[in-house]
């Protein structure tokens, strides 16, 4: 055993240094220090800014208005027409049922009447 040669981590009183923490484990103070050194905020091009905010606001509002117009001018009249036809057919069906019931009552023969 060679004497006098002691490994670095084994010397008495030596503090074992852990590797630097991943960024999400750092405290806000350390992160702020890092952010000063590391990444300044990026200057976003105006084209991208305009594209983003028009995609956020203009496009949904436009599609909302267009869908509203489509609903009013096209879908609602169709729905009303269908409801009207449905009501007429229901009336006809009720008539037929009534007639059928009357016939059935007239034709049944039972001695219990």
């Amino acid at each position, binding site marked *: 055993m060679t004497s006098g040669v002691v490994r670095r981590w084994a010397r008495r009183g030596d503090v074992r240094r852990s590797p630097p923490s991943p960024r999400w484990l750092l405290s*806000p*103070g350390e*992160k*702020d220090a890092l*952010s000063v050194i590391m990444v300044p*905020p*990026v*200057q*976003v*091009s*105006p*084209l*991208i*800014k*305009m*594209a*983003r*905010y028009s*995609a*956020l*606001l203009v*496009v*949904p*509002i436009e599609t*909302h208005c267009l869908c509203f117009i489509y609903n009013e001018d096209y879908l609602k009249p169709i729905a009303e027409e269908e409801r009207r036809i449905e009501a007429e057919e229901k009336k006809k069906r009720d008539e037929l049922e009534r007639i059928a019931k009357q016939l059935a009552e007239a034709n049944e023969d039972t001695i219990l009447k």
Partner: protein
Amino acid sequence: MADAARRLVQNLVTRGPKVALAAANYSKPRLATFWKYARVELTPPTPKEIPVAVESLKGLIASFKAGAYKHVTVKDALRNTLVATEVVMWFYIGEVIGRRSLIGYKV
């Protein structure tokens, strides 16, 4: 049941302020960092920037017509795809806000 409710109220009253304070202390520096980046990166375009944006759009169309897309590197193409994807995602966020429901339209 009443016992659990009573304990809940008790805990809220005694520990609530401490937890709220701890949450505020935790979030303040992080919010400050977020605000520091958001003030530069996420702001809407000022009226002065709109002509610049229109000019860059025209430049983009001109370069497309000139065939510059044939000479773009893969790294640049990837970066442009990421930026375009992010812009498209802003549309979906706008849709969620507009229909006032996280998923699906409430008819």
